[in-house]
Structure formats: C-alpha cells, structure tokens
C-alpha cells in the first residue's frame, strides 16, 4: 500500500520523516532489544537503522510492506553487529554463575518444577549459550524461541526462505541441546 509519507519524506519533508519514525520506532526497537549484542547501546543502533532507512528510502519499491522493508534493514544491522562480537566456540561449566549452575542442575532433575525466580538466571544462561552460534542461526533462534515469532514472520522480516529458516532453527537447537548435555556432563 502506498504511503504518501514516503514521497513527502523523499522530497525533504522532515515532518513526514518524523511521522514515519514515530510509526515504525516500536517495531525497530523491539528487534534491536531482542537481538542487541552486548555492550551496544540500543538507541545508537536504532539511530543507525533509521539513518539507513532514510538514505535508502529512494530504492523502496513497495514490493513488500514498508514495515517489513524497515525490519529487514534492522535485522541486517543487528546481524552485522553480532558478527563483531567474539563468538565462543563452546562454554564450560566454570563459566557459569552460581544461579546459572543451580538452574542447569534443576533442569536436569527428573521431577523438577519450573521456578519463576530462576527466570533471570535462565535468560542469562540462554544468552551465553546463544554466543556459540553463528549470527544468522542465533537471530533465527532468538526470533522463534525467545520472541515467539512464527516462521512466516521471520521470513517476512529477513527475506529468507522458509526452508532456510527451518533448517537454521533445527541446526541451532540441536547444537544448543548438545551444548547443554556437554555442560551437564562436565559439572
């Protein structure tokens, strides 16, 4: 659907550009927060994304909704940033904090009950485990498993094929299951 704010922004109308930012900022910041590599300020990354959006707005051909086009720029920018982070080939039990140890041990017990007070430790453990993955695989897994996006939504926001997303997710989950087993065995 044509958005007259795009034409106005292209003609240098800053009010239209502001309206576009206002409309799409929540989508962009959600993507940034979900995939933000550590030590990166979310607002700086969001700013970088919108600068790219406006510098490339002339090449937008409305083949996909503007929301998806902007999301793709956000996703690419996040993945590029993740690439700069040092990827850890594997994690050791000694790398974990006490709370993370406890969470891992409880998960391994046959009749454990989920403890909501362990949620934050579980999230930190997930973040550490995700660092073992390639940036694209990490992006897919965070989107599907942490953010609750559907495969279709990942495809729309990345431009990747469905089969590619599924393969990446399968491979990444397998890798993390192995990593968890290895951690448990090494404790």
């Amino acid at each position: 659907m044509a958005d007259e704010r795009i034409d106005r922004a292209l003609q240098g109308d800053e009010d239209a550009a502001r309206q576009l930012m206002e409309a799409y900022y929540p989508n962009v910041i959600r993507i940034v927060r979900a995939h933000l590599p550590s030590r990166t300020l979310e607002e700086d990354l969001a700013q970088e994304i919108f600068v790219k959006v406006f510098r490339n707005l002339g090449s937008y051909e409305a083949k996909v909704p503007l929301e998806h086009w902007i999301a793709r720029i956000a996703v690419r920018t996040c993945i590029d940033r993740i690439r700069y982070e040092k990827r850890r080939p594997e994690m050791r039990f000694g790398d974990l904090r006490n709370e993370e140890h406890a969470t891992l041990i409880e998960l391994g017990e046959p009749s454990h009950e989920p403890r909501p007070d362990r949620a934050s430790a579980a999230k930190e453990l997930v973040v550490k485990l995700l660092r073992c993955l390639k940036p694209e695989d990490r992006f897919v897994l965070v989107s599907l498993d942490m953010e609750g996006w559907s495969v279709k939504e990942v495809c729309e926001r990345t431009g990747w094929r469905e089969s590619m997303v599924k393969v990446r997710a399968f491979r990444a989950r397998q890798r993390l299951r192995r990593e968890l087993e290895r951690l448990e065995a090494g404790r």
Partner: protein
Amino acid sequence: MKADRWAELVSLARESVPGEATEMPSGFADRVLREVRRDPAAAPSASKILEWLLPRAAGFATAAFAAALLFAYLGGVFDSSGQDELTRQLVSALSVGAEL
C-alpha cells in the same frame, strides 16, 4: 523419553522478558535527521579512501623518493664541507634513476 532441556530453559527464560516501553525518546528524530542531512559523499568511508589511494600509491612513493633524493642532493651542493658518503650514494642513485 529424555526431556528437551533447551525448550525448558527457553520457556523459563521467557518469563523474565520485561515489557519495556517502546516510545521514541525525545530528540531521537532530530539526531537521525541531522545524520541523514550530512552528505555521505562529504565524509568518504575508509573503503572509498582506499579505492582512491591505492592506484596512486606507486606514484606517491616515487614522488616521495625523488623528493628525498633531491633534498639529499641539494644538501650536498650547499654543504661547504662537500658531500658526505651518504649524499654521494644518494646522488649516485639519483643519476641511475634519471638514466632509467
């Protein structure tokens, strides 16, 4: 059947995802527009600088070498005590370079 630890861990971790505000902070749009207004061509990227510099690198190196030889030669000419060994060698190299 063995429990899926990854699924259990993720399910627990998702409970900690906070519902943070998503409003655009004040001044954000101004910063973006200021950045967009800056002409990217006016501030060339490192790759553009290299793209321009590399084909000219050999020329710059030759010019710098010739200038160094010229200074050495002039230093020798104006030095009342005559040319020292280094200057003689440089002048000799300059002559060879000129013949080439």
